[in-house]
């Protein structure tokens, strides 16, 4: 039955994105653990899959982007991938919006962002969330996930389900400010990228948030580095779900 199911329904791929896979390895581990906890039968293709093309497209290499999309399509088809779950907002935006544009109807793979997946899993009773009573958290919308993909509510709902006291920064959702990490700014203009990050972190301090949470490895790494001296700790979304002890310890400090 299971085998037949797989043949007809195809495989679910966990696609972490290059930054998570090669640099944010703990985050990748967290997300894999979450998939296992939810009882998802998934595959990974770490050595075969290629970059989604987000940095390539952003840097103006459109032909390379198209080639990456076509290459990935072939790899995914070879492995009967019918659904991809990714935690990376940039990959999510590329796979769900830009791939269909360059690949047309051939691209028929369902794309889910991890926050959508978690909310569904919790609602179906397949996943349990830790509780953080009275923790004051603000949520940073990653540009690719929020204003570029309209995913604003799912991550916020999950936070509320964890008994978190969610406070919004004055600039939130469609008006939210970038962390400064995207568009190539970190590599091409690191000082400016840091300034923009500090500006964003200050907005979290303004609303007395204890922590900033964001479901983006890039935003997380960039803000963590720039928030070291401030009073606000930065966490990637999965850390809150998987590393409850670590988070609680960090806040007590």
């Amino acid at each position, binding site marked *: 039955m299971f085998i037949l199911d797989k043949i007809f329904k195809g495989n679910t791929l966990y696609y972490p994105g*290059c930054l998570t896979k090669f640099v944010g390895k703990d985050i990748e581990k967290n997300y894999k653990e979450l998939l296992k906890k939810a009882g998802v039968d998934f595959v990974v293709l770490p050595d075969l899959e290629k970059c989604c093309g987000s940095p390539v497209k952003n840097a103006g290499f*459109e032909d390379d982007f198209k080639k990456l999309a076509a290459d990935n399509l072939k790899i995914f088809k070879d492995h009967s991938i019918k659904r991809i779950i990714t935690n990376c907002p940039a990959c999510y935006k590329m796979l769900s919006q830009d791939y269909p544009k360059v690949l047309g109807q051939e691209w028929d793979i369902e794309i889910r962002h991890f926050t959508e997946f978690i909310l569904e899993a919790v609602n179906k009773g397949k996943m349990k969330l830790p509780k953080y009573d009275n923790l004051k958290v603000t949520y940073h919308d990653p540009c690719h996930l929020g204003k570029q993909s309209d995913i604003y509510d799912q991550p916020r709902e999950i936070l509320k389900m964890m008994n978190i006291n969610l406070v919004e920064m004055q*600039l939130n959702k469609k*008006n939210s*400010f970038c962390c400064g990490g995207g568009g*190539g*700014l970190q*590599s091409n203009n690191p000082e*400016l990228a840091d300034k923009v990050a500090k*500006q964003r972190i200050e907005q979290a301090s303004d609303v007395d948030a204890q922590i900033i949470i964001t479901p983006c490895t890039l935003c997380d790494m960039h803000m963590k580095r720039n928030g070291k001296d401030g009073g606000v700790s930065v966490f990637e979304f999965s850390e809150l779900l998987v590393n409850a002890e670590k988070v609680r310890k960090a806040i007590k400090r």
Partner: protein
Amino acid sequence: MNKKFVTEYIEKRSKALSSKEAEELRDKLYNLKKTAIDNLDEYVKKAKSSLEKNGCHVYLAKSNQEAIEELKKIIGDEKYIVKSKSNTINKLKIDEKLKAEIVETDTGDFIAALAGKKDPHPVIPALSLTEKEISKAIKEKLSKDVEPKAEKIVEFVRNYLREKMLSAKVGLTGANVITTQGQIVILENEGNISIISHVPEKHIVVAGIDKIVKDMDEANKVVKAAAVWGTGQDWPNYVNVISGPSKTGDIQNIHIEGAHGAQEVHVILIENDKYEVAKGKYKDKLFCINCGACYDLCPVYNAIGQIPKPSDFERNYKCTLCSNCALNCPVKIDRQSNFRNNRKDFNKLEKIPQANKKMIENVRKYGNPFGEIKDGDTPKELYCC
């Protein structure tokens, strides 16, 4: 970053127009501006002919230089002229090129000129100056003691400029919109434009040819958007609609030009590279109504006081591609795509930032932006993102 300014702006804007109304207006504006730019040549010809029929003198200037030559001829030997805020005129650098003294009559422009510190924001040139700094500049430049309070500063500026505006012979303004049917539309809150476009004998209007729309119905939409997206207002305090020099037929139905308002209206329409741009892939640049909304929500502008610019190699790569500018543009200029397309153009010219060069080499060779990664290793240099 001026957080108070940004949050108040967002709040006012959302009250001025619901998001549904805003989206509808954006679509209409995009379409009407696109039609205008796609038919630029025809629109310019029609506007010129209509304005002339209304009694205006119209000059088509191929370049900023030609516009300055026309200005010189019209201004003649006048010692000073009174001027309103205009981004088109700013680009002419007239204070260096004209003999006449230029008196800035917009409060923000006047203050910014005194302080010698002009913010690049198209609507709020004194945005980055505090009351104290302004009071200090007035003391230094005009030897007057003014309490560092907004109200007192405005009172001082009003009194200082009133006499100059009333006695000037030439008023110089920009235009927010010009219609193919011969109307010039200039909006404002302060009232200085109403005075300097009506009181001096000559009113000179300088505008880019991209300011032309079909009719007043379309012009009203631009005015609405400029108010809502520009300052979060529902409608500007004043909308000046000028169709020609003042006139009267009160005596025996004899047509006399020059009653109470301006006796001459001169319109200088500047072409520059706009016909060329209108045919190319960056034509949406010409849709701009100069409201400044892209500045207000740009994280980079808020951090460093300068907005990234797609066509400028240095300034392009200061953009994080967050898309705030594109999503907040009332005429739907897709700056997000423009940044990428300009990067594409730079790449073709082999003008590629070092980090991007490494990134693309790595992607082509290894399928990821970081390069060759052996089992378990973590790359140190992150050429991406």
